[in-house]
């Protein structure tokens, strides 16, 4: 036991003392935020630049009415279609829209859009919408409906606010979705990242040939366990740093962002609720209320449980894989595939679970131990029946006991096998024999 502690200490300290650990730990949240922001920016702005469309309108319907937008600029031109088409290459237009004379109340008509390069399906759709809007409002006008009436008719005045019947709290699918997705994603990355870290470390010990020296002093299982626990502590350290950062952000950053809200108030959920229910339509305050309502302590505890459970389950497998690899790093890919597939599968299941938290896939995925850490974490913010949580937790514990036992058998033989490539059949024999 004392020896495991010595091994744990070494594994922990060598990692935490590295400068890259601190830098990465502090950087990752910003990378996360930055990445999300970047994705948003790309979605908004990156789609397409402004397109200039030349319009040859022989029907004289659209002039003045076709409005320019952020993405589209319409320029009305005169001339013959052939020569305009010809000049499209040299002119500064992205496309030429040809509108023939047509019957506004008639059946489906097709206009023609000429372009030099592909203009993109999105732009095409926008132009079509713009044209239809003009035609529809023309028809409305003809039917005697003013644009005032029109606006009134089309106004969307209903929004949904969901309430859970269990505790009467306002639930917000958006917050639950974001929390669930975030937790699942972090677990997914942790299991892969730290699992790989364990594997690399085992491989290093094997290829450096220090494994034999160490196992002449400690049992291989102790070495493996020490390594896995040491790396887990590194991960926990990282998570704790993040939780503290997040806590500081909740306490200080968020109230500051909502502006003028006293810190005191933000710590008192009732006050915030009251404020929110008193018709305070401030979006931030509503968000605050939901943030307050979410049971963060439970969430953090479950997160730690699934983090450790999932990590131990996979780290043992990764350790076993590391012990099978010889000098050839490439070889490791072949062995890691069977392990990474369930992790990725878990991630895929999670994506479907946050859409439908109580669907069949979600329930199965959150109970099956190989995928449960990721999937269950995504479900917990939405609320999960107790029996499912209990089953999932119990199976996860059994699962990691099982994988550690199996990995121990593979590991103790694998780390001392040099030279020849180990087939999966042999590995099977190691597991089966006493």
């Amino acid at each position, binding site marked *: 036991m004392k020896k495991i502690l010595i091994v744990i200490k070494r594994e922990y300290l060598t990692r935490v003392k590295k400068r890259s650990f601190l830098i990465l730990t502090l950087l990752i949240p910003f990378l996360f935020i930055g990445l999300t922001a970047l994705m948003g920016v790309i979605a908004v702005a990156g789609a397409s630049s402004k397109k200039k469309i030349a319009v040859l309108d022989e029907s004289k319907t659209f002039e003045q009415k076709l409005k320019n937008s952020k993405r589209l600029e319409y320029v009305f031109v005169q001339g013959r279609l052939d020569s305009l088409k010809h000049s499209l290459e040299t002119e500064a237009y992205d496309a030429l829209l040809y509108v023939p004379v047509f019957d506004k109340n008639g059946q489906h008509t097709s206009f023609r859009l000429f372009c030099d390069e592909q203009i993109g399906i999105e732009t095409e759709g926008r132009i079509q919408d713009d044209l239809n809007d003009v035609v529809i409002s023309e028809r409305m006008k003809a039917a005697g409906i003013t644009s005032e009436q029109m606006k009134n008719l089309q106004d969307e005045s209903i929004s949904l606010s969901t309430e859970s019947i269990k505790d009467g709290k306002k639930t917000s699918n958006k917050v639950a979705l974001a929390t669930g997705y975030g937790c699942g994603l972090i677990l997914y990355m942790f299991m892969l990242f730290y699992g790989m870290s364990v594997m690399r470390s085992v491989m290093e010990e094997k290829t450096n040939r220090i494994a034999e*020296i160490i196992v002449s*002093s*400690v049992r291989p299982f102790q070495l493996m366990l020490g390594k896995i626990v040491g790396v887990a502590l590194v991960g926990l350290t990282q998570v704790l740093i993040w939780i503290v950062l997040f806590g500081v952000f909740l306490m200080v950053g968020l109230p500051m962002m909502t502006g003028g809200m006293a810190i005191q108030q933000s710590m008192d959920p009732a006050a915030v609720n009251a404020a929110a229910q008193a018709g305070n339509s401030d979006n931030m305050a509503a968000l605050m209320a939901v943030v307050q309502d979410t049971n963060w302590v439970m969430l953090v505890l479950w997160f730690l449980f699934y983090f450790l459970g999932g990590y131990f389950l996979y780290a043992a497998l990764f350790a076993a894989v590391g012990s099978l690899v010889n000098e050839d790093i490439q070889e490791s890919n072949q062995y890691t595939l069977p392990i990474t597939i369930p992790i990725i599968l878990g991630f895929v299941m999670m994506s479907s679970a946050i859409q439908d938290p109580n669907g069949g896939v979600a329930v199965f995925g959150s109970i099956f131990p190989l995928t449960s850490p990721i999937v269950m974490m995504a479900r917990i913010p939405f609320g999960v029946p107790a029996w499912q949580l209990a089953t999932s937790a119990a199976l996860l514990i059994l699962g990691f006991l099982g994988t550690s036992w199996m990995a121990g058998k593979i590991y103790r033989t694998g780390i001392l096998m040099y030279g020849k490539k180990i087939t999966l059949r042999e590995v099977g024999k190691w597991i089966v024999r006493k």
Partner: protein
Amino acid sequence: MLLSIQNLKKYYATQRAVDDISFDIAQGSIFGLLGPNGAGKSTLLRMITGIFYPDSGTILFNGEKFDQERHVGDMGYMPEERGLYKKMKIGEQAVYLARLRGLSRQEAEQRSKAWFQRLDMTTWWHKKVEDLSKGMSQKLQFVTTVIHNPRLLILDEPFSGLDPVNANVLKDEIFRLAQEGTTIIFSTHRMEQVEEICNHIVLVNEGKKILDGTVKQVKQDFKENIFSITLDRTDVRMPEGIQVMKQQDQKITFHLQEGYTANGVLQHFIGQGTGILAFEEILPSLNDIFIRQVQGTAAARAFDRI
């Protein structure tokens, strides 16, 4: 007996790596474990160090059943394939390995420093292993093996990769440890080192013990009654019962046939009035014995099913 091995067996799927081997090692002796490549030496050592469990048989350490957990501090093991953590600082590494052998942090640091001083390594303390030359890391490896003052030191090919100067430094340390009462198992296939260092040897081949005894005894056992005599002249008549193998000026090497004695040969020459300058029995070198014993068996063991 410090170490007693009884009927040890370890079978792999494709071969009998160790097949019923027994021997004893006396306290304070330097014991040579010899054998060609693949004879089963490493497997045997791995069982003695507790890395592998034997399929059957017992290992007694100091009269009690060997248990890695309990005897970990009494053993030092330097495997043939050397290994250290490349990215770890040398001082930390020595302390870490010593602590795994059961020393307290304080003691581990003290001993490491003492050993580093003895072997002129003090300036290395904060360096990383990857910065060391091969010879230097060998030295470090040796230090980490003996740092906890083991009663039984197991060295698998300790001199491979060392230059003659460092090999001598290491040899001196081994002798010094032996004098202080450390028992040493020395596994090798380099016979000249064995003759120089060991006092007791065991030869294994194909998983079986084929020789066991002191170096002197083994040589006696394998002597072939070959003598050489140097006379003061060359025109001599040979006595009966000898078969000249080689005559080089005044030195004659011969095989003494059964029923005749060395004294008879000497008397013959003395009776002739021939002056005798030198006379000695030629004992076979361990190398010869080794080759003779191992020859004929497959150089690399065939992977036969058992």
